[in-house]
């Protein structure tokens, strides 16, 4: 573990405005990604995965929310304290992002080529011709043939899988050191999902990128992650190396997630589901936010927030079940 963290998030607090008050979408989240590492951020919809990624990118829409506290250190520099222009110059160059919906993430009235080359021209100061050359190489690299033809076509002429490849091509066009992928395969059908994941994994290895992969699909996690972070209601509740976490989950929520995963060749009458719903994030009292749905809920769970505790080497969990000093 000698490798330096490329991204380090400390006590990040991202709030969105709502009619009922401020919502802590990302609540005191700390995590780090090392060079060449793939970290998966897992959790249900609305648990703050995407908000975390958008906070890192500085793309939280100021009319709907803000990053209120914390640090986002990218190679030692705090992105949150950076001037807007400086952040913009890093964004898309040193760290880049791909999104969930490839169909709507590309501009319908600009050609694919235009959209690939514009960020190259913006960040690398290449001429149009050189940028086009690079663009064609990238299209080839992400596994689409007929580069010239694709280059001059429009998004509506390509399939979802191809568009996501194009999004990846755009994201890696300036050789970023960190790639954030927000549910990159969710909108695609299963066969394409596997291809896109393979592509991401290969690119990551070839280019020695780090990757923050956001997903709710544990199958994806098992396939690509080095390290897994489980989020619930804006907080990290458990994190650990992928094998360790899958073999030895500690938090009841993580256990529930793993139990809810369908297993091939095991036909069950009914898939396991975690009872209850994600709590309303507006007026949460100090408690374990999972306590309402937890089968092991104790009295302390409803009154005090569990601290993060190291269980084993780099395997942490926030759950009162593992605090010895608490008398049950």
């Amino acid at each position: 573990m000698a490798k330096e963290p490329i991204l380090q998030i400390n006590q990040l607090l991202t709030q969105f405005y709502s009619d009922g008050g401020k919502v802590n979408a990302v609540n005191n989240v700390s995590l780090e990604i090392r060079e060449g590492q793939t970290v998966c951020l897992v959790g249900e919809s609305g648990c703050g995965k995407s908000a975390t990624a958008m906070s890192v990118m500085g793309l939280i829409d100021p009319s709907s929310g803000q990053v209120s506290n914390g640090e986002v250190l990218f190679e030692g520099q705090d992105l949150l304290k950076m001037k807007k222009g400086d952040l913009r110059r890093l964004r898309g160059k040193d760290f880049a992002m791909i999104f969930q919906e490839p169909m709507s993430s590309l501009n319908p009235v600009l050609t694919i080529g235009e959209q690939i080359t514009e960020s190259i021209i913006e960040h690398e100061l290449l001429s149009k011709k050189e940028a086009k050359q690079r663009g064609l190489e990238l299209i080839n690299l992400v596994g689409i043939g007929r580069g010239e033809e694709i280059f001059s076509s429009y998004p509506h002429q390509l399939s979802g899988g191809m568009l996501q490849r194009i999004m990846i091509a755009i994201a890696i066009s300036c050789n970023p050191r960190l790639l954030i992928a927000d549910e990159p395969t969710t909108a695609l059908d299963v066969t394409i999902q596997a291809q896109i994941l393979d592509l991401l994994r290969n690119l990551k290895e070839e280019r020695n990128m780090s990757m923050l992969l956001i997903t709710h699909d544990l199958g994806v996690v098992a396939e690509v992650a080095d390290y897994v972070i489980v989020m619930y209601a804006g907080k990290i509740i458990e994190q650990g190396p992928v094998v360790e976490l899958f073999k030895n989950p500690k938090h009841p929520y993580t256990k529930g997630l793993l139990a809810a995963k369908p297993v091939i060749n095991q036909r069950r009458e009914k898939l396991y589901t975690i009872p209850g719903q994600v709590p309303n994030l507006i007026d949460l009292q100090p408690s374990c936010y999972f306590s309402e749905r937890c089968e092991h809920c104790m009295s302390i769970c409803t009154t005090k927030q569990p601290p993060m505790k190291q269980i084993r080497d780099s395997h942490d969990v926030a759950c009162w079940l593992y605090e010895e000093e608490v008398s049950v």
Partner: protein
Amino acid sequence: MRNYVLKRLLYLIPTLIGASMLIFFLYSLVPGNFVDSDPNLTTERKAELYALYGFDQPDIERYFIWIGNLLQGDLGYSLQFQRPVTEVLGNYIWSSFFVALASLILTWLIAVIIGVVSATKQYSFFDSFITIIVFAAMATPSFFLGLILIKFLAVDLGWFPAGGMITTGSNLTGWDYVKDVAEHMILPVLVLTMLGIGGLTRYFRTNMLEVIKQDFVRTARAKGLKERVVIYKHALRNALLPAITLFAFELPALFSGAIITEQIFNWPGIGAIYMQAFTVRDYPLLMGFTMFIALLTVISNLLADLLYGVADPRVRLK
């Protein structure tokens, strides 16, 4: 592509035939005509004039005569002016056209700029302030707005002439003439612009707000593009697309004149002539003019569709 245009052009024919029938029969079925409106005529004289203008023929027959003349580019004969309709229109339509064109360009330019700025700074002071101003201008009737402008800018300050198209009694030529007309144009153009700007500004603001929320704008930001590029290259282009249709519909309006504004500023435009023709039942002039606007409308419709295809690759024909 050529086949498509050809097909669309062919479709225009039945549309125009329908329009011509509507226009002709609506006017010819209205009781009374130009001759009837003069109570001093004797019965014999009336019959003479009926025969002269063809009012004694059956409507169907008159329709085909009218259509036949239309096809030869003859819109009929204005009874009031005792000159061909085309000549009357030709005399007045251009003065209306230039005022309308100037105000159209101004309205669209201002509306796009204000729309974009107030969308990117939604709920800011600028946004609310402009919204109030724009609604106030839109809600004020044109005669009131016109009179206010005349009172302050023409009478009190004396910056612009209060009405007319050229300085009375002047005999200017060349550039001096153009300058004189331009000076007289300013107030009517201002009134038309203020009236038109409200709706359009709101339209662009809404379109822009819609587009700014789209995923591809977020992608453009994530690429690290400058905010200016994100707004003007990625967002604005998409926000302008639906406006193409709107813009094409402005084409007939360019030639149809502004009845009230032209009256206030004593502008010799087609709007005033149109009103006058109504009062004296100069139906050939009205029919000819309405037919001309109908033709412009269907052509601009076609133009809108073709332009949309040029601007939006998703509807571009292969």
